[in-house]
């Protein structure tokens, strides 16, 4: 009962309320391309998000490829110099730069494709 009275009191308007309502009354704002502008920004952001991860993977792979090959080469030399291990490891097991880069590109394209499919 009390809440009903309170709700009614909420709705009762004195002259000042009516004057304030008149003063605060909003004139509609014309769209004037606003919604189109926001959706354009939105679509651009969605595409940027789609591309960001594959691009980062591609750039990361490109940067890491050379040091990775050098590191693997050194590891191979080290293993080759160890008696007993050398015989069990093939000499040409280290992938070439080309293979690493191709793998990176493939991974980036794959991630991009997954993102597009997800969307």
């Amino acid at each position: 009962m009390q809440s009903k009275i309170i709700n009614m009191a909420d709705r009762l308007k004195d002259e000042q309320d009516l004057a304030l309502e008149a003063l605060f009354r909003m004139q509609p704002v014309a769209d004037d391309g606003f919604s189109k502008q926001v959706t354009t920004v939105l679509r651009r952001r969605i595409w940027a998000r789609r591309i960001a991860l594959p691009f980062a993977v591609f750039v990361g792979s490109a940067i890491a490829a050379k040091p990775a090959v050098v590191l693997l080469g050194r590891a191979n030399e080290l293993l080759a110099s160890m008696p007993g291990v050398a015989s069990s490891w093939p000499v040409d097991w280290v992938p070439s730069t080309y293979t690493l880069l191709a793998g990176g590109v493939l991974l980036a394209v794959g991630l991009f494709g997954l993102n597009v499919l997800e969307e």
Partner: protein
Amino acid sequence: MAHEDHELVAKVVANNDTAAFGELIRRHQSQVRNFLRKLAGDTTLADDLAQDCFLHAFNKLSTYSGRGSFPGWLLKVAYTTFLQSKRRSKRYAEILDAAGHMADSQGKSYTHPNEDLNDLEKLLAVLDEQERAVMIMSYSCGFSHREISEATAMPVGTIKSLIHRSKEKIRSDFAIKDHQHG
């Protein structure tokens, strides 16, 4: 066929449907931009904030439970966007200074109001930011106390006392007697 707001929201959440979201923007941009224009007192800044608001809304749309009204939820995002921007930017303070808004620091600041301001701007300038937001939601947007409470995350009792205090401030600053205005 025109879809209801909640149907469009469902489309956006399910498929990231930007066309459906575009329709939601078209429907509600006027209220959001009006709210922010009155709150910020600067049309360009308000429209930038409105854009940010809709971008945030798109990202957070899955958190809209559908219990309250969609415009209410949207104004909540708009108010949060405004507060975040205000915290980040010094530009807001400069705009308020330019508009002569020194209500709290100078007491009755509108004894010599800036002639360039219209009646509503003068009136809003005597209120602090929280009071302004609540008054705009109540008198411009026609929100109930409960809706304002949901949008501002303040208890209904606080909303009522903020509205009462704002009206008292307006009465005293503009020498309006009870049940009389002008």
